[in-house]
């Protein structure tokens, strides 16, 4: 596979990287793990004239930090680091669990959280967890920093709220309360999610006080299944309730189609996996 030719830049500071983005505008693309970008370039589906490699910024952007109510995850943290992080495992386990479902060991060792979210593949796994965890995404532009809520970040097919010239530097994950689960139906060819559902449920004495459900793979972008959440909150949890709430998993969504899964099958899988995720999350609550 033969990409078009391009210039390669290896900045060592964030400012330098932002400067290169400003200088080359639409002709430039950031390179993180390269596990989405390089395959697209090899097929000439993506043809950036300038690649700005973030590898030199690992010292600054590869960390998983305890900040009290929040766990701050640097954008260059790899899927493997997230999957095996004890801090995340104990305080925000949904993210760690989800990371373990991505690709294979080679992919997890190289792919990054920032790249994954910025790429916004509709079948990527992280969006589901980021949405259910109600994480915030920190974007750095030449003019300064801003924070975008997960629900506002994913906007469509490979489309996010990040502006050209901005770099996703950090994901801020609230310390998780309650139980969580990520349930994935793997595409047999790509291994991506035909459907992936992340759920967090909190409750006491059998009553659900708070429920968050993020769904990926089903629509052109990850989304929160708010109808499911509403159906559960304030109710006494039961298997029947989870099942009936899960019926709303793809409500109002225009499901994706491919040779492996048509729209009705995808919606069905979304319902099944939502029920499973709710049930498993409640058990861990």
């Amino acid at each position, binding site marked *: *596979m*033969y990409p078009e030719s391009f210039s390669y830049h290896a900045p060592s500071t964030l400012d330098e990287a932002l400067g290169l983005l400003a200088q080359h505008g639409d002709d430039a693309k950031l390179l993180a793990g390269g596990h989405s970008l390089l395959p697209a370039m090899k097929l000439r589906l993506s043809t950036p004239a300038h690649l700005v490699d973030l590898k030199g910024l690992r010292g600054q952007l590869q960390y998983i930090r305890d900040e009290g109510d929040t766990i701050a995850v640097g954008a260059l943290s790899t899927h493997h680091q997230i999957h095996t992080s004890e801090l995340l495992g104990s305080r925000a386990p949904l993210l760690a669990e989800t990371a373990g479902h991505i690709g294979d060991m080679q992919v997890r060792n190289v792919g990054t959280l920032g790249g994954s979210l910025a790429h916004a593949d509709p079948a990527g796994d992280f969006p589901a967890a980021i949405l259910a965890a109600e994480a915030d995404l920190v974007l750095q532009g030449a003019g300064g920093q801003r924070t975008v809520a997960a629900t506002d970040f994913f906007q469509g097919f490979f489309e996010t709220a990040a502006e050209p010239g901005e770099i996703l530097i950090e994901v801020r994950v609230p310390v998780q309360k309650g139980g969580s689960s990520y349930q994935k139906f793997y595409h047999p*060819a790509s291994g991506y999610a035909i459907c992936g559902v992340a759920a967090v449920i909190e409750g006491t004495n059998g009553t659900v006080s708070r429920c968050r459900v993020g769904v990926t793979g089903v629509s052109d972008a990850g989304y929160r299944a708010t109808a499911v959440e509403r159906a559960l909150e304030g109710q006494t949890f039961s298997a029947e309730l989870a099942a009936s709430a899960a019926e709303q998993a793809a409500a109002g969504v225009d499901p994706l189609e491919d040779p492996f899964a048509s729209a009705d099958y995808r919606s*069905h*899988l979304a319902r099944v996996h939502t029920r499973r995720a709710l049930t498993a999350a409640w058990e861990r609550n």
Partner: protein
Amino acid sequence: MDKGFVGQAVKRKEDPRFLTGTGSYVDDLNLAGQVHAAMVRSPFAHADIRSIDPSKALALPGVVAVIVGQDLVDAGINGLPVGWLLDGLKTPDHPSIAVGRARHVGEIVAAVIAEDRYLAEDAAGLVEVDYGTLPSVADVSDALKPGAPTVHDDAPGNICFEWSIGDKDATDAAFAEAAQTVSLTLRNQRLVANAIEPRASLAQFNAGTEEYTLYTTSQNPHVHRLLLAAFILGIPEHKLRVISPDIGGGFGSKIFNYPEEVIVLHAARKLKRPVKWTAKRSESFLSDSQGRDHATEAELAVDGSGRVTGLRVKTLAAMGAYLTTFAPAVPTYLYGTLMSGQYALPNIYCEVTGVFSHTVPVDAYRGAGRPEATFLVERIMDRMAQTLGEDPAEFRRKNFIGKDQFPYQTPVALSYDSGDYEPALDRALEMVDYRQFRQDQAEARRQGRYLGLGLSSYIEACGLAPSAVVGSLGAQAGQWESSLVRVAPTGIIEVFTGSHSHGQGHETAFAQIVADELGVELDAIEIVHGDTGKVPFGWGTYGSRSAAVGGSAVVTAVRKVRDKAQKIAAHLLEAREEDLEYVSGQFQVKGSPDQAVSFGDIALQAHLAHNYPEDLEPGLEASAFYDPSNFVYPFGTHIAVVEVSPETGATKLLRYVAVDDCGPLINPLIVAGQVHGGIAQGAGQALLEHAVYESDGQFLTGSYLDYAVPRAEHLPSFETDHTFTPSPHNPLGVKGIGEAGTIASSAAVANAVIDALSPFGITHLDMPLSSQRVWRAIRDAQPAAAAD
């Protein structure tokens, strides 16, 4: 004493170089001054090529040439030939580069040659082709409909051939008298071959001697040379040397002549520089010949005692847009002749229509015709057992050809020379613990879990093949095999074989055969293959023929060498030949082992010829041309156990038991590898793989993001065993095992899934039994099942 390498699980001699990255594949080779080719391929399934403007591409510095179809015509280069002819076969011209019209997505419309491959790809994107798109058709049934777009004007109605085998009237009569009949409409879906090494070709032309050298990914370099030289380029055969070095798998797809080989040969001559092309994986999807793709209607009849009396089959077989080298043979003589399976089935009639459509050509893919036949026979046997309410294992057993019935003449041409089917069935049932499984299955169903077990009692005809027989059936090739065994003065033995190893492990298995015949170590033996400049001739490797035919040629040649060595030994020992025996690598006088001469000393004397029999030529080498007297007929029973999730439709393959009879095993490790890989491919067809075309011929599954191949996680640990019924007609008694796993396993897995779904009243589903297809079937069936 005999060392007995044959039968031992010797580790493969070739593996260290493969595993340490020191193999030498075509793409690893680079010649001084080499330039690179990139192909411009049609994005349309059917289009007029109104004009091609290469000027922008040629303007790019480093671009050497742009070649179009007319250039090949002007150079006197012919289209690609068909190597198997049938009565009334339509053989439309198959140019290496389209002239005037493209007929499938991926067909080459121009080739760009440049100083490096990146440049060549850039330039390929700059070649401006003015296409006028035309209506197109992809599906075989659609292609036969009145008014369907025509692929070739000289094949009206898109019919490539109409062929049949068996006795129609007798079969119709059997159906008229039947106590019960069942019918089955099935699609055997199209597949991509997926060799791990993409195809590659590197051509060199010596302007002084006018000799071409072609390094190419070929399963049969001599066939490549013959067809390229005599039919395509029109040059004397000795002016083309074809070298097929280490090759990373073929599965049939590397048997055929391909356009890219012709293009690099032409360009190398024109440019006087070596020209290299290596397929990108996306080109493999669009240009390697694909497999299967049948639409079939079949009926089976039984008499009042449940014995099968008739099988009627009507198949539409996709040929794609052009005929490749052996395409017409695959859905005919490699398919219709297998319809008897393991069964005493007295009346069979099978009709096949070969159909052109605007898709990538279809030809042999691992098993080639036999998996399609086995799938049909084993699926319809299950269907009948279910209809009669009989146990599928016992229904098969009852209908097996008895072991005292061999040789058994089937109604579809083949004569099975040997077989004993019950022991393999019994062993497989025992390994899977059949009775226990049926209890577990019943218990699981009570808990809402759906387990299924599927049998496939397969037979295949391989070891292609008696030359006169295949000749009478349309082959434009012989099917014997050659071997030359040459002993060096130092006693090192070089074995030149016309078989080709592209994963099969000939360097080890053939060495084991020779080592035993001569009582020497494996390291003393070098197996040489894959080079028309070294190997005298050969028909190559496909149809599970290497051990049975190639191996037989090796044994025959090495025995001739031993016979000559015995004459030399007799002279050296001053004994009579018949008083000598060969033990542990030396000839010795019977009863007095101290009077002995080693093979190494004999080899030296054969070359020195100082102390030598007067009436004997010096040297120690012999060749053999082995033409088998029949096919070989491996068989066995495979059993798959699955669990189907009624909620998602996902199938999990829980167990896979394979009992194969391929005669004696030369190397059990290699046999296991072949069986394992074969099962994986067949299970892949059953559950996952599908080359999907849009109805207009756009190809939807052109990458591994969309085309699912089985991975380790999809498969259980296989449980394998063997029964041993030697072939009666070759010196080693061996039968092929290269394709058996693939031939058997699709049916076993599919039958298991259908068995699991039987509570829903589902009696058939087409492959791949994807989760979506299974889920949909359950959903559609449930109301009916509930109403029961």
